[in-house]
C-alpha cells in the first residue's frame, strides 16, 4: 500500500502540466475554471475550440486503446491527467460524453465499421455527443422507457422524449435507448441507438432550472431517423449496453472531479479567512469536516481504482456516488453559511448568480441525478450487503 506515484508517472504528470501551461492561455485564458456544473452553458464555442486544441496535442481520449486514437494510458496516468487538468483550471469538457461514455461503449459493442466511422470524431473533438437516458416521469426508474423505435424501409424511426440532456444544443450525436418491441416492458425489448441531432425529427427545448439557467434540455423525437447501421448491438441489447455504459461513468475522472471540489473548498476557506467567519468555532468544525471528507473521498477513489484493475465493481465503489453527492451538497451549504448574510446577494440583477450560489443550488441536483440518494442506498444494501430487494407488491 503506497500513496505516491512512480517516477514514470511523475514524469507524465510534468508532461501534462507543461502542455496545459503552454496551451491553456491566450484565447483560452477566459475559460479557465469555467463550464463546470452550473456553468455548463457558458463559452460553448471557446470550449469546442479548446476540445480540438486538446485533440491536436493528443490529450483527448487518453485512456482509449492506441488503435482507436488513444494513448492506452494506465489508470494512474489517467488519474494524473485529470488531476492536472483540474489543477490547471481546465474548462468543463464539452467532449466528455463522447470520450467517457459513447466512445467506450462503441469500442465495447460497436462493429469495426462503426468504430472506424464514429470514434475519430470523438477523438478529434469535432463531433460532440449527448445522452438520451432519462425520460419524463421515469426518474430513477431507468427501465421505464417509453420512447419507441420502429424499423421502416431499413431505417429506425424514433418517437418519444428524453429529459435532463445536457449539451443537446451543441452535440452532433445523441445515444438513445428506445423500445424496439412495443409489447415489451421494463428491461426487455430495448435498443441502443446512435442518433444524429441535426435533423428535423429532433427538437431540443431547454429546461429552466432553479438557477435560472438552462444546462439541461428536453429532447423530443418525432419520427427521428436513425440509420440501421447506427444501432449499437441488436434489438433487445439496449439495456445491457446501457448498463455497461453507466459502468464507464465511474472511474478515472473522479480524481479530477475531486480536484475541482478542492478548488471550491479552497475558495470557501479563503472566504472564511477573509471575512472572519473562520474564527467561528462551529464554522471551523464544518470546514474541517469538509476537508476530512474530501481527503477521504480521495482515498476512497484510490482504493476503488486500485481494486478495479480487474474491471469488477468493488464493494466500496457502490457507495462512491452517494458519498460525493452528499459531500458536495454539504459544501454548497457550507459556502453559503461561511458567506453569512452576504450569501444572498447575487452578482447582477435580474438573476445572475455568483459562482458559489450556483454551487449551492446546483449541488442539490447531485443527490438526484444518476440515481437519487435513495436509489443509491438501495443499490448499496442489495448489491454490496446482499440485503433482499423489497418484495414485489401483490397486484391490487
Amino acid at each position: 500500500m503506497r500513496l505516491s506515484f512512480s517516477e514514470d508517472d511523475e514524469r507524465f504528470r510534468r508532461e501534462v502540466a507543461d502542455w496545459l501551461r503552454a496551451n491553456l492561455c491566450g484565447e483560452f485564458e477566459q475559460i479557465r475554471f469555467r463550464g463546470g456544473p452550473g456553468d455548463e452553458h457558458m463559452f460553448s464555442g471557446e470550449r469546442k475550440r479548446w476540445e480540438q486544441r486538446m485533440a491536436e496535442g493528443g490529450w483527448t481520449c487518453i485512456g482509449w486503446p492506441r488503435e482507436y486514437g488513444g494513448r492506452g494510458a494506465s489508470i494512474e496516468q489517467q488519474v494524473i491527467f485529470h488531476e492536472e487538468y483540474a489543477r490547471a483550471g481546465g474548462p468543463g469538457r464539452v467532449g466528455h460524453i463522447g470520450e467517457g461514455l459513447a466512445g467506450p461503449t462503441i469500442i465495447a459493442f460497436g462493429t469495426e465499421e462503426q468504430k472506424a466511422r464514429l470514434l475519430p470524431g470523438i477523438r478529434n473533438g469535432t463531433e460532440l455527443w449527448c445522452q438520451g437516458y432519462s425520460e419524463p416521469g421515469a426518474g430513477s426508474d431507468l427501465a421505464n422507457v417509453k420512447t419507441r423505435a420502429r424499423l421502416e424501409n431499413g431505417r429506425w424511426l424514433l418517437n418519444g422524449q428524453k429529459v435532463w440532456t445536457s449539451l443537446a444544443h451543441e452535440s452532433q450525436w445523441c445515444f438513445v435507448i428506445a423500445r424496439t418491441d412495443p409489447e415489451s416492458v421494463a428491461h426487455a425489448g430495448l435498443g441502443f441507438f446512435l442518433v444524429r441531432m441535426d435533423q428535423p425529427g429532433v427538437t431540443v427545448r431547454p429546461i429552466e432550472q432553479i438557477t435560472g439557467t438552462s444546462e439541461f434540455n428536453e429532447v423530443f423525437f418525432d419520427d427521428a431517423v436513425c440509420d440501421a447501421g447506427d444501432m449499437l448491438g441488436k434489438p433487445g441489447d439496449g439495456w445491457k449496453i446501457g448498463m455497461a455504459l453507466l459502468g464507464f461513468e465511474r472511474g478515472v475522472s473522479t480524481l479530477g472531479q475531486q480536484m475541482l471540489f478542492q478548488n471550491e473548498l479552497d475558495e470557501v476557506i479563503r472566504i472564511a479567512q477573509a471575512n472572519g467567519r473562520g474564527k467561528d468555532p462551529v464554522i471551523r468544525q464544518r470546514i474541517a469536516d469538509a476537508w476530512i471528507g474530501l481527503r477521504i473521498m480521495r482515498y476512497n477513489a484510490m482504493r476503488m481504482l486500485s481494486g478495479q484493475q480487474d474491471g469488477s465493481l468493488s464493494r466500496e465503489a457502490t457507495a462512491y456516488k452517494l458519498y460525493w453527492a452528499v459531500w458536495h451538497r454539504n459544501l454548497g451549504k457550507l459556502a453559503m453559511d461561511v458567506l453569512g448574510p452576504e450569501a444572498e446577494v447575487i452578482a447582477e440583477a435580474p438573476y445572475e448568480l455568483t459562482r458559489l450560489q450556483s454551487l449551492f443550488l446546483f449541488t442539490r441536483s447531485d443527490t438526484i441525478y444518476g440515481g437519487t440518494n435513495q436509489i443509491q442506498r438501495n443499490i448499496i444494501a442489495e448489491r454490496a450487503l446482499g440485503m433482499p430487494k423489497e418484495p414485489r407488491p401483490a397486484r391490487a
Partner: protein
Amino acid sequence: MEFAFTEEQQMIRETAEQFLADHCDSAAVRRAMATEAGFEPELWHRIAGEMCWTAIHVPEAYGGLGLGYVEVVALMEQMGRRLLCAPYFSSICLGANALLLAAGEAQKERWLPAIADGSCRATLAWCDASGRWDATGVSATFVRDGEDYVLDGDYRYVVDGHTAGLLIVAARTPGSAGTAGIGLFALPADTAGVTRAWLPTMDQTRKLASLRLEQVRVPAAALLDAAATDAGAALANILALATVALAAEQAGGAQQILDIAVAYTRERQQFGRTIASFQAVKHKAADMMLKAEAARSAVYYAGCVATEALAGGVADAELAAAASLAKAYCSETYFFNAGTALQLHGGVGFTWEYDVHLYFKRARASESFLGDAAEHRERIAAGLGL
C-alpha cells in the same frame, strides 16, 4: 393553561389562510418577486385596508386593533406558507415594533396610524456590511448639532429599504461600542442625504436594500425618545420581536413545503407504485412533520411571550430566549424541510417551473437573516450561564 388558539385567533388564522390561497398563489408570487419593489400595490392595499393585518397588534389608541402578538404570529405563519411578497414583515414586525418599543407618545401618534392603515410602509435599518445582527452591527453614527442630529453611515440587508416610506435607523454616538450609545431615528425615506439601492438576492421573495446616510440632518424630534440615546436594550427587544415573527413565517413555510412534497409523492408513480408508499419517502416526510409541528409549538410559545413582552410583562431575557429558541429551531426546520422536499421531488424539484425552489431559497435566506441557528444557540448557551 390554554395552549390553543382562541376562537377569535382561529378565525383570523382561517381568514388569512383563505385570503392568501385566493390572492397569493404561485403566479402572484412569481409576478411580485420579479419586480424590483417585490410586491404588488393592489395586494398590499387589500392586506392593509380590507384585512387590516397592518393594524393587528397596534394599540387602538394609534388606530390599531389592539390584538396581541400571537395574532401576528398566526398571520406570519400563513404568509410564510404562501411566500407572500409584501412589506408586511418590514413595516409591521420591524417598523411598528420599533415605534411601539422605543418611540415617545408624540412619535407614536405621528407614525403608527399611517403604518396601521398601510398608507405608510416603514422598515428598520441597523446593521452594516458586517452582517452582525445585534447592536454590535451598528456602525452608523449620529452627532448633535444644535436642534438637529446629523447621521452618517452605511446599512446593508435592509428589508424593503428601497421602497419603505419611513426609515427607522439605528446609529451610535461616535466612539461608542457594543450596546451603549445607540439611538433610533425615524426619518422619511426622502430625507436629503439618504441614498438607497436595491440589493438583488438569490431569494427573490423578500427584497433587501443597502442604505447610505451622508450628512443626513434630522430634527431632534426624529430621535425615538422613549429609549433616547440608550436604545441598545430596546433595539434588542425590537429585533427579538422581529425574530419571533420571522420564525413564525419559517414554521409556515416548513409546513407548506411538507404538504407540497406529500402531495407530490402521492401523485408520482415510480417502479409501479406511488412513491409515497416507499418507506424511505414516508420516513423523510415523517421527520419533516415532526419538525414542522415542533416549529409550530416553538413559535406559538414565542408568540405568547412576545404578547406579554409588548404588555411589559416579561423580562428582556425571557423574550430573547424565546426568540432565539424559535429562530434556531425554525431555521433548521425550514431548511431541512425545503431541502428534503426538493430531494423528494427528484428532477422536477430542480426546475424553475415547480415552486419547490422558491421555498428552498426562502428557507436559506431566512435561515441566516437575523442570525442563524448556531448564533441563536450560542445566545441561549450564554443565557444558561455557560
